[in-house]
């Protein structure tokens, strides 16, 4: 199926907009062999550290390696699960507390494999993709985490 081979640009500048997520869902209405969409959204948390709250996270990446690792993860997942299509978007740059920084969208015939695949993708992504975050606090100080 063509959708399996398509190369996606994974890294997006700034937050993932809710309207982008809605549009992505809408684009699948013609793929009527899909019975289950599983979506993971990572949101920036306003953690408090030493009395200061996180107001934003600044993400940076090694873009070429991140894109190639993500495409390996895609290949791996397609070989292990009956996935109809898969989309992964990760923010780079500044994402404020409450905004979305990660959007993983996997579609299958049935719910079980969509849940399993989704969990796998998110865990592999966290472990293997060269992305880093810097927490920016209310007083403009920062910490790499």
């Amino acid at each position, binding site marked *: 199926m063509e959708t399996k081979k398509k190369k996606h640009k994974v890294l997006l500048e700034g937050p993932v907009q809710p309207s982008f997520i809605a549009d992505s869902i809408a684009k699948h209405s013609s793929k009527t062999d899909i019975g289950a969409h599983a979506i993971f959204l990572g949101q920036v948390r306003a953690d408090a550290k030493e009395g200061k709250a996180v107001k934003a996270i600044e993400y940076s990446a*090694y873009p070429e390696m991140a894109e190639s690792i993500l495409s390996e993860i895609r290949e791996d997942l397609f070989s292990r699960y009956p996935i109809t299509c898969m989309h992964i978007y990760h923010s780079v740059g500044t994402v404020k507390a409450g905004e979305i920084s*990660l959007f993983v969208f996997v579609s299958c015939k049935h719910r079980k494999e969509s849940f399993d695949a989704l969990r796998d993708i998110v865990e592999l992504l966290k472990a293997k993709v060269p992305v880093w975050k810097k927490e920016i606090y209310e007083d403009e100080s920062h910490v790499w985490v």
Partner: protein
Amino acid sequence: MKINILLFGVLTEVTGETQLQVDAENIHDLNDLHTWLVKKHPGLQDKTFQYAVNQAISSAGHPLQAGDEVALLPPFSGG
């Protein structure tokens, strides 16, 4: 000919650099490069990171040649 070095995350702050270059003549593998880097930027000594050579994670003895791209990757924290 040079080896190109990329730094990421907290390592850019430790070294004040995002990119470095070194003459490939005296650098034969990652051990040599590590020694050179720590001498130039002693702050790297206490930091946890792994190396990628031409975008593939590589271990200490990995050979290097002119034109290689070596990245210093602190622990990932995406998501």
